[in-house]
């Protein structure tokens, strides 16, 4: 396939993926908006007033970047894992495998689909949050880079999960038992400076902490990372490093036919 054909094929995969999650918008776009609204009402407005300041900001203001990131992460991941595994399960993945499409293009198409949903949900959550607090972005380029790269990373994670999954149970284990705890313990709702030193050190092993704090820094201009002696660039480097690692594993697995060919 020449470059022009590859672009057309990639556009087709992306169109199909966007069309898929837009067709079921009541399941893909509305629930995150409602959930975030509830977080704002309960934790922001009701409980937040009693909490007061967190990390030098109003509690609701502190929460906003974490909630946006939480939505982007979980929607990017779930879009790819459910779509790819669904196609594997229904064997409709065969319609792609019999075509001349190179594997990296199939992978890129799914990642872009995950990023599209992650960013759209992120935008919806941002709009919802504007009802509760006036948001000013401190560093736009950093903000855009962090949100897109994190979305790419979790789309890759979803793809990897779907590739190795053999049943519907397998695609819910990682989000439930690994991702959700890491997101909630990654500083969405609290500053890790509140933790005792031992748990602060343990928290530093959580990669999602760096993503949420890098995003918080890009919006608020301050985060736990600098306070704990880490530069924002180390967080960005880690995200890029994980992207390269996950992309290589996904592509290698696809080339080997893992989970898709007998």
């Amino acid at each position, binding site marked *: 396939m020449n470059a*022009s*054909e590859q672009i057309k094929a990639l556009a087709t995969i992306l*169109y199909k993926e966007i069309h898929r999650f837009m067709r079921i918008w009541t399941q893909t776009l509305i629930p995150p908006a409602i959930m975030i609204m509830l977080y704002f009402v309960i934790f922001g407005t009701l409980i937040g007033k009693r909490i007061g300041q967190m990390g030098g900001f109003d509690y609701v203001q502190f929460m906003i970047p974490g909630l946006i990131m939480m939505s982007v992460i979980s929607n990017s991941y779930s879009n790819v894992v459910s779509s790819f595994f669904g*196609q594997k399960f229904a064997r409709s993945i065969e319609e792609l*495998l*019999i*075509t001349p499409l190179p594997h990296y293009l199939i992978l890129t198409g799914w990642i872009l689909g995950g990023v599209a949903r992650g960013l759209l949900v992120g935008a919806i959550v941002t709009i919802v949050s504007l009802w509760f607090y006036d948001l000013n972005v401190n560093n736009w380029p950093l903000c855009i880079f962090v949100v897109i790269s994190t979305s790419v990373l979790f789309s890759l994670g979803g793809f990897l999960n779907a590739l190795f999954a053999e049943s519907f149970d397998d695609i819910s284990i990682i989000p439930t038992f690994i991702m959700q705890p890491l997101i909630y313990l990654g500083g969405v709702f609290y500053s890790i400076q509140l933790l005792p030193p031992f748990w602060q050190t343990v928290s530093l092993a959580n990669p999602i902490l760096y993503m949420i704090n890098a995003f918080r820094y890009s919006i608020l201009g301050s985060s736990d990372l600098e306070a704990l002696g880490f530069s924002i660039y180390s967080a960005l480097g880690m995200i890029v490093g994980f992207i390269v690692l996950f992309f290589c594993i996904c592509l290698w697995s696809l080339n080997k036919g893992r989970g898709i*060919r*007998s």
Partner: protein
Amino acid sequence: MKALSISNLKKEYQGGIQALKGIDLEVEEGDFFALLGPNGAGKSTTIGVISSLVTKTSGKVKILDIDIDENHSLAKKKLGVVGQEVNFNQFEKVGDIIRNQAGYYGLGFRKSKENAKYYMKKLDIWDKRNEQARKLSGGMKRRIMVAKALVNNPELLILDEPTAGVDIELRRSLWDFLTEINNNGTSIILTTHYLEEAERLCRNIAIIDSGEIVENTSMQELLTRLEVETFILDLLQPINKLPEVSGFQMILESPKRIKVTVEKEQGLNAVFKSLSELGIEISSMRNETGRLEELFLGLVEPSLKEKD
């Protein structure tokens, strides 16, 4: 040029099951070729390897002289495959399914739309283009699969039991359609359990059994191997008793129908002459279907018995 060339193709699944034991197969360009075999013989595995759904253990596969390992992308561009089972997202609209398939081959939106429209009209599914595929009958879904396989105008089309479980009307219309596209130059490889279908459509045939090709010849050559042939004679007037015609085995199937078995070296003239002398007039005559079935069973019976 060969439409398909397979040499020493082997496939061993996990657990040591040898699905293909080094098969060789060649299909001429423009041919209508039947690949037959009992269940589990290796037909679908062969098709799976050609279409990259199954990873081969060893061997070479060339599509129109292009090695699938050396130039995977170009080889696949020339191929269209109709799988055994429905393999598209049934929640999508018919038009989208077919247009997207064209897009995967790198066709632009306008060209994809144009090709999809052409094949939807050809296969009588144009009126269903805006309906979700899951709401359609099994026969309609089959047509979608055929349209999907053809939307990139492949030079080699492989159909894995395309008429399994569909009604006679659709089967006949698919036969006519496949004959038409074959006449227009598309090489076709067909696997089927309906031997009548293979006999009617295909010029050449290979029979695969237990992962090995046990026969590979022309349909005509294979059928000449029949030692005996059976004909059905319909009579103008009913008879009550079977007439005695020496040298032929006859059965009175009904008062107006006789079944006669003719050996290879015998002619039918003697039958007509004898019946005419007895005042029995024949209104029509036809071959009993299932000639290929007899040969097929003869070739694969040993392995079928082994499985039993």
